[in-house]
């Protein structure tokens, strides 16, 4: 599992500073919620962690983001490897313009996974699986023996892991665009998991979803946190209370307060945090 540290991270678009001097450690194997009012730099913070911020021409990054001991803004960084390690879920799910099956296969395929690698992945996954998700085990056991169908089984595995399999198993070759938006978000989760990340970044992953789908996503996150470091941006305080182990509070581009969720919500130290939690500012 990866360890993420931000050191004096400052990000601006043109002349406008969006994040100022952020220094924080993100705990491994937990769900970290980044909260704060709209426009406080939450999404920018998230997109700086997998260098998706590079796509914005005007963005200027100073300071360091250290993942597994390496500053990812070092010019020698392999961005593709970084993005493979750090998966991303966007606010509104975007199915790739292809079938459900091909959406999941997209990542493994571009990273050139061959039969032997799939085999090794399957063996590794088998060890990881916890007992509370018994449906995953038989898939992997089957996958060990049926070499010609390994990719199919891997797709099945990730769809099950994201809680989508039962809804789509009969139309894997149908277009992903025809799924409901809640299903699309779980497809996006499965697709992100299929590239074998260690970290999952999620940018308000439930804000476009109906309550039932949102609940499903939250449930998946809680289930996944055992094996992944998860960073969720949210503007829903109650969501942060429900799922977060650790909370980072940003206000106007500044890191106001961070700490374990229990402590953060019960006894905030900063006046602004208190005001935000109590709903005086939003």
């Amino acid at each position, binding site marked *: 599992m990866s360890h993420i540290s931000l050191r004096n991270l400052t990000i601006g678009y043109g002349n406008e500073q969006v994040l100022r001097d952020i220094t924080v450690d993100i705990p491994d194997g937990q769900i970290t919620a980044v909260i704060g009012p709209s426009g406080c730099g939450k999404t920018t913070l998230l997109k700086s962690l997998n260098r998706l911020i590079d796509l914005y021409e005007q963005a200027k990054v100073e300071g360091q983001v250290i993942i597994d001991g390496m500053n990812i803004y070092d010019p020698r960084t392999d961005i593709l*490897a970084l993005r493979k390690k750090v998966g991303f879920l966007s*606010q509104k799910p975007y199915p790739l*313009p292809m079938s459900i099956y091909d959406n999941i296969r997209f990542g493994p395929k*571009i990273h050139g996974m061959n039969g032997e690698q799939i085999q090794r992945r399957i063996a590794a996954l088998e060890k990881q699986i916890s007992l509370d998700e018994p449906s995953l085990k038989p898939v992997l056991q089957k996958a060990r023996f049926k070499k010609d169908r390994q990719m199919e089984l891997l797709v099945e595995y990730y769809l099950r892991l994201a809680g989508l399999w039962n809804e789509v198993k009969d139309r894997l070759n149908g277009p992903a665009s025809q799924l409901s938006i809640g299903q699309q978000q779980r497809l996006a989760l499965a*697709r992100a998991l299929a590239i074998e990340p260690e970290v999952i970044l999620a940018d308000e992953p439930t804000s476009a979803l109906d309550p039932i789908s949102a609940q499903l996503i939250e449930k998946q996150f809680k289930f996944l946190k055992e094996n992944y470091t998860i960073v969720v941006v949210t503007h829903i305080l109650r969501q942060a209370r429900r799922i977060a182990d650790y909370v980072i509070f940003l206000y106007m581009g500044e890191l106001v307060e961070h700490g374990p969720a229990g402590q953060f919500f019960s006894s905030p130290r900063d006046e602004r945090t208190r005001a935000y939690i109590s709903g005086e500012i939003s």
Partner: protein
Amino acid sequence: MIASVSMVLALLIGIILVITLRGASSLNLSMLIQTPKGGYYLGKEGGIANAIVGSLYLSLGATLLSFLFGLPIAFALQKEYTGRSLSNITRLALDILWGTPSIVYGAFGFVVMVYFGLRASLLGGIIALTLLMLPIMTRSIEEVIRMIPLELKETSYALGSTRIETTLKVMFRQALPGITTGILLAFGRGIGDAASVLFTAGYTDHIPRSLFDPVASLPLAVFFQVATPIPEVQQRAYASALILLMIVLFVSIFSRLLSRRFSRHIVR
């Protein structure tokens, strides 16, 4: 609202009606499969096979050529590949080329061919038509690619794909309905254009056997044959107009169907 709809519909129906009434009576199998006998301008026998085949050769060749150049140009104009000012200049240039009257392409093609000592030929016609079609195709495809949501590209990049992979596997497929429409739009413009092929492709009673033979085309078949005093020759003109109209109608409908089919995978 109703007035504008009915005006547009009346115009379309009027054109179809007039051309069909004049052309349908002369449209028979021999009209479709025979070339004119005794010269297209005077001969009373034969059909318009020379023009049908010629037009298809010309516009299919030019569509292929335009696509081979146009698609890469359309992608190259995106901000992933080209800086803003350079791509804007290219867009402006394409827009000017789009608006250039086709007779200018014909004249330009003619000058160039004279310079190189070439005579009117299928190849010359294809090249002149390509000049006409390239801006149309490139600009319409480029516009569609530019509309691809940034978030979709982010999704692809976030999975660790390279710029080329994102371009070929995601952007191309997302833009596919629009690309299809762009191709067929350009094809429709090309097959109906008379002026650009007038000097460059020439006109002939025969079906060309090589790229260097002159070639007939449907728009010129109308142009040369409609104003003669001989009724049989006029028949060929109306038949050509009808065939041309049918091809263009078919292409429009086909392009709608195709683009709907390709849209299955797309979320906007």
